[in-house]
């Protein structure tokens, strides 16, 4: 199917900060696309460009084939956007917020009644309809924001870190909610700094320093991961010299609880395990996950590879 969201070579600079540096991706209807990247990677900038809030300095953005910054093209009726920051009226109640956004999109009274009832039901916010939005918990607030962005049935939904600050149970709720709408054919772009959420997306793009490091189906990406991952526990003064000596074979090191998570070239894994054990550290192999993939890619600074292929 032809994409409804297309970012082509997006580039944007804020003063001295290069926020986007040739970011390209496309999303098809019914697809849930994850933009995954650490803080400052450029996710928000990309989504704001797609929402028509910023005009990119380089490259082009298309949503349902239209320029999102062109207010007269009617693109806004097809677009839903949930900003990363607070975006609802805290002094208005849940129902008042919904009604306000429904009217902004010129929904009829009946449409509003039907859709808000359904959205309140699936977000389980019915009981709180009269409560001011600022008195909602973080998770409920995000669900309400999502409901407000969904009221006008956009064909494209852009969500900036919808699960940030949300407890695990509500996070599941949010994802379930998204699947429901994706199943109806909505294209969703969701940004998240949580690598463990990658697996919930149909396809992900790893964003680093404003460009894509890697793109593909999350499972295939991890399956194609060629490095090994070790959990290393032990005194720092024993472990560090060993890792240092291993040089380029150690791809990335990240803290993991009290221990270290070490990504190592597959061929060098056995030798490193022996050396670490000899230095008095406990070593255990781990199943590679998305974070390792990201760490390895970010550390190598490798351009978007074909790891999934």
């Amino acid at each position, binding site marked *: 199917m032809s994409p409804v969201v297309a970012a082509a070579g997006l580039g944007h600079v804020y003063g001295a900060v290069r926020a986007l540096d040739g970011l390209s991706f496309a999303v098809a209807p019914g697809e849930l696309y994850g933009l995954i990247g650490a803080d400052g990677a450029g996710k928000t900038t990309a989504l704001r460009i797609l*929402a*028509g*809030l910023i*005009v990119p300095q380089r490259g082009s953005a298309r949503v349902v084939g239209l320029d999102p*910054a062109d*207010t007269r093209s*009617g693109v*806004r*009726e097809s*677009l839903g*956007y949930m*900003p990363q*920051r*607070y*975006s*609802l*009226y*805290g*002094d*208005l109640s849940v129902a*008042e917020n919904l*009604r*306000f*956004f429904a*009217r*902004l*999109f*010129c929904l009829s009274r009946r449409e509003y009644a039907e859709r808000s009832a359904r959205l309140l039901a699936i977000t389980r916010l019915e009981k709180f309809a009269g409560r001011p939005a600022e008195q909602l918990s973080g998770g409920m607030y995000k669900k309400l924001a999502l409901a*407000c962005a969904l009221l006008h049935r956009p064909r494209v939904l852009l969500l900036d870190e919808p699960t940030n600050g949300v407890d695990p149970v509500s996070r599941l709720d949010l994802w379930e909610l998204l699947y429901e709408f994706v199943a109806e054919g909505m294209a969703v772009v969701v940004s998240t700094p949580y690598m463990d959420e990658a697996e919930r997306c149909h396809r992900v793009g790893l964003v680093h320093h404003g460009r894509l490091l890697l793109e593909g189906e999350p499972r295939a990406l991890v399956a194609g991961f060629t490095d090994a991952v070790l959990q290393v526990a032990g005194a720092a003064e024993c472990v560090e010299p060993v890792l240092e000596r291993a040089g380029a074979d150690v791809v990335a090191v990240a803290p993991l609880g009290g221990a270290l998570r070490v990504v190592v070239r597959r061929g060098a894994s056995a030798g490193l395990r022996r050396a670490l054990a000899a230095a008095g550290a406990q070593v255990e192999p781990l199943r590679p996950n998305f974070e390792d993939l990201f760490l390895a890619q970010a550390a190598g600074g490798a351009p978007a590879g074909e790891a999934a292929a």
Partner: protein
Amino acid sequence: MIERLKRMMIKEFLQVLRDPRMLGVIFGVPLIQTLVFGYAVSTDVTDVPTAVVDRDRSPASRELVAAFTSSGHFRVVSAEGGMERAQAMLDDGSAGAVLRIDEGFAGDLEGGRTARVQLIVDGTDSNTARVVLVYANRITERFSGAVRAAPAGGVQLVHRAWFNENLESRNFFVPGIIAMLVMLVTVILTSMAVVREKEVGTIEQLLVSPITPAEFILGKTLPFAIIGYVDVLLVSLLGVFWFDVPIRGSVLLLLLATTFYLMTTLGIGLLISTACRTQQQALMMVFLVFFPFVLLSGFMFPIENMPRAVQYLTWVNPLRYFLVILRGIFLKGTGVEILWPQMAALLAMGAALLAAATLRFRKTSA
């Protein structure tokens, strides 16, 4: 779309009416200001503590002192003692004026000669001093009129204030308060309402919706225009029914002039909001522009007394024009045939400010 605009306005009203601070700005401030100006800051001078140095000690001199005290403007705090004591009281502030009647006062009067009395006024507060001298003049004039059976010829200057016959400062103040408050309230409300959307982040959600800049701007100004009218009404009613300020001109003309004036203040509010990111910045900016507007309006200091360069500045001050209109309508009953230049100035400025705000808004929000 009328629907969108309506919903936007309902939202603004809901937000304003739910915010106790804003309710205070809309209703509390006007009421309190009017009462404060009406009672406390009245420049009508009464009960000036007066030290009397009466060296004549005649029935005539006592009569003159009685004329001063019965006017209500002067209160004798010391009737004994000489000039030194009076001067000391003037120095330490326990007396605000000294009335000195020299020997021979009664004799002069009887002989048909001009009798001299001296009034020394504490001039530290020049406004009060001026008012006190005017009162004293009126009292002595009346006194001489009563003494003299027939004027003995010569020129006699007769002061008479028109339109505000009793020179009541209240009559002068109430229109000024209306003009000042409407500006303050509407500029604050408009700029805050827009900046709050920016500060909280809700503007993003608005900008990705199909709302047009015109709808947004109308939605952000019409509610506060309505509140502005309510405030004009509130202060006018308080002035007319509580403080007995006359309203001699057409109420319809007042409403029309208010409309033009509101266009300028809402335009200023919008312009401020395009230049600020936080509500705090906006509030600072409001006061930064508000004080020059008030000071250069003729409300507190007469424009004729300002340096020429500053006088030119007052030409772009909407408050100045509205003040003339309000005083005309309230005190003189003037109609549009006299006030049209001020009305035209307000309309032109209002249209220009709103247009500038719309342009700037389009640019900054894009």
